[in-house]
């Protein structure tokens, strides 16, 4: 198996997925997430859905310790991935982030860098790979992000010369080039047109056999198209912290929701 994978890293099936336990998060004194619990199984796509402001993105940013970068932000509770406590005191936040890939709402390639440089920048930061293998890694990552055929002849052109959808696939390539065990996606298609969105969704399905994916989306159809499991979060009143209402297989959440709030949301009556 290892020989077939040009990318370094551990085998995804040797670790369990992501588990979030009793997680609460604050911005200053404002509690935005309360008592969040979630198990995202390994090598599956787990979607987090819910209305705007329900704390989905915050949950995601707690997983790779991006939340704590905001001044005054605070986290309580546990996040474990592959049995490792992400918030262990002796664990450096930077090394956590380099193990967990993240894709943002808007495509954010580094504008002064080329397509190639963008693809391998994470590997450069991690300093785990000899220089001679960088091109190989770029090709693998760009292929997995289904971008290779479109960019192979212009790898050294600026990343911003790509279309929005291509830029977002480049950002996905950048995130998976380090072969992270977990990929977090924060509404990755919200800035894209339907065709670009379709390509990204296709790509998420394709990489799901290799990576554990957690995707935040406010597009319920997207959740049904790409995810195996779905968690529904909501807030009761404006200003309340977001909570997980229901979690289950995507078919169950959309087909036979147990909680009335979930039912109201997925049927389009609320939110």
């Amino acid at each position: 198996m290892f020989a077939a994978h040009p990318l370094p890293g551990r085998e995804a099936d040797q670790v369990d997925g992501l588990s979030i336990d009793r997680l609460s998060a604050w911005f200053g004194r404002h509690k935005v997430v309360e008592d969040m619990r979630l198990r995202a199984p390994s090598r599956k796509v787990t979607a987090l859905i819910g209305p705007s402001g329900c704390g989905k993105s915050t949950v995601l940013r707690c997983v790779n310790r991006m939340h704590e970068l905001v001044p005054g932000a605070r986290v309580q509770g546990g996040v474990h991935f592959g049995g490792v406590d992400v918030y262990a005191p002796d664990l450096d936040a930077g090394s956590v982030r380099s193990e967990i890939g993240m894709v943002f709402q808007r495509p954010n390639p580094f504008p002064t860098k080329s397509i190639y440089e963008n693809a391998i920048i994470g590997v450069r930061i991690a300093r785990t790979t000899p220089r001679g293998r960088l091109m190989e890694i770029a090709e693998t990552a760009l292929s997995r992000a289904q971008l290779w055929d479109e960019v192979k002849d212009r790898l050294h052109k600026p990343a911003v010369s790509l279309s929005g959808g291509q830029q977002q696939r480049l950002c996905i390539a950048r995130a998976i080039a380090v072969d992270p065990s977990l990929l977090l996606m924060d509404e990755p298609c919200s800035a894209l047109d339907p065709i670009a969105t379709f390509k990204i969704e296709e790509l998420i399905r394709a990489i799901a056999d290799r990576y554990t994916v957690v995707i935040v989306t406010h597009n319920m159809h997207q959740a049904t198209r790409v995810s195996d499991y779905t968690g529904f979060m909501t807030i009761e009143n404006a200003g309340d912290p977001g909570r997980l209402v229901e979690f289950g297989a995507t078919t169950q959440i959309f087909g036979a929701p147990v909680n009335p709030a979930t039912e109201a949301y997925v049927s389009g009556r609320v939110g």
Partner: protein
Amino acid sequence: MSPASAGGIAAIERHPLPIALRGERRRLGDSVFGAAVALTGGVVLLVLAAMVVFLVLQGLPAMRHYGFFSSITSQRWAPSEASATLSTPNPYGIVQFIYGTVLTSLIGMVIAVPLAVGAALVITDVAPRRLRRPLSSLVDLLAAVPSVVYGFWGLFALIPAIRPVVDFITSTLGTVPVIGVPFGGPFFGVSYFTAGLVLAIMILPIIAAVCREVFRSTPRNEKEAAVALGATRWEMIRIAVLPRARSGIVGASLIGLGRAVGETIAVTMVIGNAVLHINPSIFDQGATMSSVIANEFTEATEPFHLESLFVVGFWLLIVALVVNMLARVVVRRGVSL
């Protein structure tokens, strides 16, 4: 999407805009305001043009007498050798002043730019959040110190402080043949280098302030992209902040250069005002275009002396305008990138 947006242009043609939205509708206030703005803008341009014309007119007798470009081909300033009739060689050569201006500005830039970039990064991305604002004001405060105070401080505090270092350099590197020439002694305290050092401190705040704004404009999502890949703070700065800021830093430096080129009183106090010719060592005394004017205009009694100072002023204005225009172009391009 509503049908209106689909056939937008056609719709506008069919339904003319309400009168209030059509162009060419003016009130008296508009024309008064327009005229006032045009007038104030015109006055600024007029003052600049008048200044150039004035400098040329005042310098014209000397230019006529010695030839128009003889002052910028000669590097010997010896007013006592001037006479009312003799026209060659031009005793009012100004190459050594251009050299002094360029050298002191260069020394100032080499020292100030890295310090200012560092200071700006500390303020925007490194220092604890609580300290950023106070630090920022502190740097701005440096800009408020009057020029003459810098000169005074340079003379009585800076020179004694740098003397041991400079003496060490002149007695080691300065004794090496050829390479040592620009670093030779003796060091009298006042020198090109001292002036450059004072200039560095004077232009640091403006460069730091512009860099600070440039660094602050780094999009948050690009910083987050770097951090999410596991970058340390320094790596984040190197990957997300600095590459974007390159032209901004160049522009900031050119603004600083513009200041350095024109700075007069502090430089005059610490450069030594050796006007005769170029001195090869940066630790030797010299003069700049602005310092010679400030130093000599009150006692310019020799033939064509005062007129030649106007010639210096004219070329100084040209140099300053070019540097400032360059800075503006680069900064504007940098911001819109």
